[in-house]
């Protein structure tokens, strides 16, 4: 099943930021979003993940198939690394956290409290969470923030393995991960004042 986004207009705080965004993400493929800060990449990703409703357009094939990772990793400081991961595994109905720990080189840290990790280690834990969800579509917002070169390579390997296993990934990133990925620049989709919005029945103008 493909993730199909058609003619999407997304809004931040009631103001449209991107419009007419369409793409298809097939299994095994990755799509990288690019665009300057504030262009609306995060808003687009949140809409695709179902956290906010689109203003116009549809997202199909996303229901219960998306694993979302954003700037905040949802890590509980007082729980250990393994506890953090197994919580998410339980929530998503999975049980095995070992492959995820291994893939992100967290094996030695498994019994450390997450609060004592460095920023990059926390980020790795946040990304390892994707693997225990068992979800096919990864939606990633700036996944490589605070990762060092070696960790970026680990992450790229994890994404490659995920794609090879038939998964797909949609990510906003500025770093070239060395992946076979399509690139979608969102800059041309910046919302302009369209007549459609002005004629809107509820418009205040």
């Amino acid at each position, binding site marked *: 099943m493909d993730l199909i986004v058609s003619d999407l207009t997304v809004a931040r705080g009631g103001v449209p930021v991107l419009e007419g965004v369409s793409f298809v993400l097939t299994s095994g493929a990755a799509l990288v979003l690019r665009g300057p800060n504030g262009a609306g990449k995060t808003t687009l990703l*949140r809409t695709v993940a*179902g*956290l906010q409703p689109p203003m116009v357009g549809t997202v199909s094939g996303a229901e219960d198939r998306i694993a979302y990772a954003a700037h905040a*990793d949802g890590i*509980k400081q007082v*729980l250990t690394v393994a506890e953090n991961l197994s919580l998410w595994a339980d*929530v998503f109905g999975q049980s095995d956290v070992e492959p995820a720990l291994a893939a992100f080189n967290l094996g030695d840290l498994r019994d450390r409290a997450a609060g004592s990790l460095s920023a990059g280690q926390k980020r790795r834990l946040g990304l390892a969470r994707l693997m225990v969800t068992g979800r096919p579509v990864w939606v990633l917002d700036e996944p490589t923030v605070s990762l060092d070169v070696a960790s970026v390579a680990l992450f790229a390997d994890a994404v490659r393995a995920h794609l090879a296993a038939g998964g797909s990934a949609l990510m906003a990133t500025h770093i070239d991960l060395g992946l076979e990925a399509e690139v979608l620049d969102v800059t041309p989709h910046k919302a302009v004042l369209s007549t459609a919005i002005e004629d809107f029945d509820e418009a205040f103008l």
Partner: protein
Amino acid sequence: MIALLVRDLRLAVRAGGGFGLGLAFFLIVVVLVPFGVGPESGLLSKIAPGVLWIGALLACLLSLDRIFALDWEDGSLDLLATAPVPLEGIVSMKALAHWLTTGLPLVLAAPALGVLLSLPQQGYVWLVASLAMGTPALSVIGTFGAALTVGIKRGGLLLSLLVLPLYVPTLIFGAEVARRGAEGFEVMTPLLMLGGITFGTLALLPFASAAVLRINLR
């Protein structure tokens, strides 16, 4: 969903504060009352049921903003919203965790504090019964308030302002059961009303809380 409950309980125990704080607050309120109204045991035993109920209610209120605030800050709430668990279930589990860490200890501690306020002998059973029946409603209503104010920085005061009026019926019936029990009157009517409020809120309010949370996550 059980995993979430276990996590919340574990967090409450490990973070230290969450578990004991409400209880300590309850104790302090009850200790302060005799300083305020005088040590005369006749007066204290008359107001004991009401004071204990108000103390428990305030102790409950104290910890409400922790229900969602931490999960909101660290992004867990976003991740939970995309999880295969319905948000209604998540808020119910949150309310249950809040009751287990705050309400239940209050229920268990209330008789000991009743001694301090010279609660009459026959009042203990009904005090515990009324708190056991009423505190779940306090947690569920509080979860609704916490969901409403989750996106607001320093929303603690607003949370109290929103939740306290909603607590009025629970407090009235709960304290009425405890008072009538202490004075040896028939308690069945207010107890049934209290039960009605608790089960009604348990059944319906999680839907409102989940709806409100979805709006706040947008």
